[in-house]
Structures are given as structure tokens and as C-alpha cells.
């Protein structure tokens, strides 16, 4: 019966379902239609992705489209007035200018390093919503083109617009939506979080032109108060970023929990460290080889929204083989060894 899904046209299956004399035959046709639809959807998703990293300039403009809105400390998620749009000069509010500038640096990284024209590679406008809520200790991406920034309470956190890697992290959630589309739960959610940390860190390293050895590999160092100092997370040494950091450094410490969408911000420490180890082994600028490998993995047609660590590791190995020059290349060896060290492989 399952074979029919691939070879019998959908209109014929519809006709069988409509006119079949027995319930069993109708059910069979309907089952086949359901499978057929799933396969066609999967094909469409796969066709929209590509394993290769586009290395030549796309038809995009290379100019971001930034809009910064002032939420005036309201908790309503209706966009507030635009206080700075693309090309307009700085305003008196530092949060507005920091969001604008850090959006620019993130766009520049994706454009210059990965030839990606904004989050959707089609020049998508980016909206920053500053001064969201009162003393709100967070920043998040809403999945609809808006990044929301709290001011922080001044004790635990400060203004979230001040951190380039945090902004790179949030905007990368948008890139992931348009590439691997990793489901935000469990291991795929931890991968989603991890690639946001990876590219958030690379955005900062690229802006500062830092080598692997010069980078701090910390996330959120600019937004934490004394209680959470020195940072939210350490990609180099997960579990050591602050006194409450519970990130595992390898699969032996994998955390099972029903909070935080299944520990997406905790278990991301494992793939984070795999990236750091890869970049460290290759040396130089992390975005040049390791970053391109991870980006190609996000575009791998064999990756699924519910892919787990092992599938992502295999995608990075395929990408390293393609980008690095074969299975025996330094890149492939570095990637493979990194995933073995964190006990995913």
C-alpha cells in the first residue's frame, strides 16, 4: 500500500477514496494520500535547501533594512513607533543606536562572509523593539521579523541592545527559520540554540577581527550583572560561565528536563563546544572555515526539523568534506574529532 503513495497520482487516489466499495479500500487510499502529501512536502522542503554554501555574491543589495521601534516600556506586543529607520542619523537614545548598529554588524557578517542577504536571503527587513516592558530581563526573537529588547533590571541584567553576540544570536534564530528550521524543543531545540550562539559569537569575532585565540567565546558578557558575571554561557568551557551555569560539556552530562523546551539553553553547551573545538583545531579566523562548515550544515537537505545531535554532526562532516577538500582533509578530521570529544559520535 505504501508504494502506491509514490506511483499513483493523487487525483486517482482521491477518486479511489471517493468511489471505493469497501471501507478498507477507502482507508487504504486515504492513507496513501496522507503519505503522498507528506513526501511531497518533504521534497519541497528539501528542494528549498542546498548543501553548498553560496560563495559568489547573490542578487541582493548588500544593504540592510533596519527599523528600530520604541516600545516605551509597555508590555503590549504591538509595534511601537519607528524612531530610527535605515539611513537615518543617530538619535539621543543609546539603546536605539546600539540596536541599529548591532543589527548592521550582524547583516554585514552574513552578507560579507556567507553572501546571505538578511535573514531570509531575500533582503528581509529587521525590526528591533527596544524598551520592551519594565525591567524586563530578556531579549527574544518572535519568529515574525521582530527582535524584542528588555532594558534589564540593572541588577541581574543590563540593556540587551548593548551586546553584539546577543543580537547576532537572536537574528540567527531568524536565519535558522529559513534554513534548517530546527524545531525548538529537545535536541533539535538545543541545536537551534547552539547555532545561534555559534553565529552570534562569529558576528562579534568578525566585527572585532579576532582570531580563534583572541576571541573570548563567551555569550552575553556585556549584559550580565555581578550575580551572573562573567557571562551567560561559555562555548569554550560550558558550565563555567557563571555560578548558575548548568551546561554540560559532553553527552555524559546531557540534562533531561521539561523546562525551557527540554533544556534547549542547557544542552546547547554540547554542540557549542564541538564548534569551539573545531575552530580551535583549525586556527585563524573561525568564520573562514569552521563557520562556513556549520552554515553549510544548516543548509543540508538531509537535515530535518527534528534532527538530533548525531544528524547535525554528520551534516557538518559532509560539509567539511565538501568545503575542506575531502574525507582526509584537516577540516574533516577536526570536525569529526570535535564531535567525538563531546561524545556525540
Amino acid at each position, binding site marked *: 500500500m505504501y508504494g502506491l503513495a509514490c506511483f499513483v497520482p493523487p487525483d486517482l487516489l482521491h477518486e479511489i477514496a471517493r468511489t471505493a466499495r469497501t471501507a478498507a479500500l477507502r482507508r487504504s487510499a486515504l492513507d496513501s494520500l496522507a503519505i503522498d502529501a507528506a513526501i511531497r512536502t518533504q521534497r519541497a522542503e528539501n528542494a528549498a535547501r542546498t548543501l553548498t554554501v553560496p560563495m559568489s555574491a547573490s542578487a541582493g543589495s548588500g544593504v540592510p533594512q533596519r527599523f528600530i521601534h520604541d516600545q516605551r516600556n509597555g508590555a503590549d506586543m504591538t509595534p511601537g513607533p519607528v524612531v530610527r529607520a535605515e539611513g537615518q542619523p543617530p538619535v539621543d537614545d543609546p539603546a536605539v543606536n546600539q540596536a541599529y548598529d548591532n543589527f548592521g554588524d550582524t547583516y554585514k557578517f552574513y552578507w560579507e562572509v556567507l553572501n546571505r542577504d538578511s535573514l531570509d536571503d531575500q533582503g528581509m527587513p529587521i525590526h528591533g523593539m527596544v524598551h520592551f516592558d519594565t525591567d524586563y530581563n530578556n531579549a527574544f526573537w518572535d*519568529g515574525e521579523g521582530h527582535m524584542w529588547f528588555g532594558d534589564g533590571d540593572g541588577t541581574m541584567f543590563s540593556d540587551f541592545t548593548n551586546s553584539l553576540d546577543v543580537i547576532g544570536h537572536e537574528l540567527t534564530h531568524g536565519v535558522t527559520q529559513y534554513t534548517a528550521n530546527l524545531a525548538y524543543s529537545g535536541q533539535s531545540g538545543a541545536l537551534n540554540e547552539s547555532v545561534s550562539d555559534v553565529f552570534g559569537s562569529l558576528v562579534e569575532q568578525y566585527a572585532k577581527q579576532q582570531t580563534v585565540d583572541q576571541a573570548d567565546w563567551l555569550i552575553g558578557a556585556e549584559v550580565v550583572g555581578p550575580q551572573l558575571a562573567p557571562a551567560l554561557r561559555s562555548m569554550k568551557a560550558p558550565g563555567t560561565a557563571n555560578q548558575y551555569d548548568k551546561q554540560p560539556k559532553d553527552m555524559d552530562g546531557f540534562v533531561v528536563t521539561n523546562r525551557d523546551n527540554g533544556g534547549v539553553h542547557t544542552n546547547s553547551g554540547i554542540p557549542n563546544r564541538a564548534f569551539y573545538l573545531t575552530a580551535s583545531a583549525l586556527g585563524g579566523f573561525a568564520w573562514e572555515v569552521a563557520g562556513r562548515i556549520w552554515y553549510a550544515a544548516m543548509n543540508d537537505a538531509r537535515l530535518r526539523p527534528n534532527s538530533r545531535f548525531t544528524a547535525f554532526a554528520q551534516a557538518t562532516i559532509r560539509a567539511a568534506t565538501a568545503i575542506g577538500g575531502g574525507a582526509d582533509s584537516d577540516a574533516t578530521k577536526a570536525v569529526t574529532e570535535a564531535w567525538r570529544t563531546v561524545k556525540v559520535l
Partner: protein
Amino acid sequence: MADGEGALNASVVAVGLVQSGGIAGLDMTATLRLADLPAADADRTRGLVEQVLTEPEPPQARTPGYDGLEYELTVSRAGAPDHQIHTRDGALTPAQRALIGELRPHLHPF
């Protein structure tokens, strides 16, 4: 039926909040015991709790969101089971938001 929904009229003793997720992925908790609060604060908190418990079911979150905060509110009442409410950024009702705002300054990591 949510936990303890059958005894909404019992006297509110305490309200607790566990906040998780967010870009920090930090688990934080706070508990307000009404008996420990000044009378005016206790009355305001009790009023917010009653609003949260009696308001209509909130609409679905407008977006799935990434790095949004998740909240577990626990209302403890005399002689009744605890009542738990799970919600998150993008899905908060005005009363839930106000009650979380009361608890937020008391949050501490655990």
C-alpha cells in the same frame, strides 16, 4: 480541569513563580506569602491572583518565539490543592502579566 480548580474560593495563602527559558536559560523562582506582606500589598496581590484564576482562557500565543520566558505560577490556598498555571511570553493575559510583575523583583536563580 487544572489542579485545584474546584476550590477557587479558598483563601489565598501564597503565590509562587518559576521562570525559565529566556536567552539566559536561567531557572529562577520567587514566592510571596501574603501573611508576610503589608496589608495593602497583600490585598493587591490577592486581587491579582483572583483575577488570574477567574479570567477567561487566554488566546493562543501570537507567535512561537525563540528565547521567550516561560512561567509557572502556583497559587496556594488554605485547605485546597495548589493551582498551577503554565504560560509564556506572547501568551500572557493582563492579569498574569501584572501578577508576574509583582513577583519579578523577588526572583532568584536556583
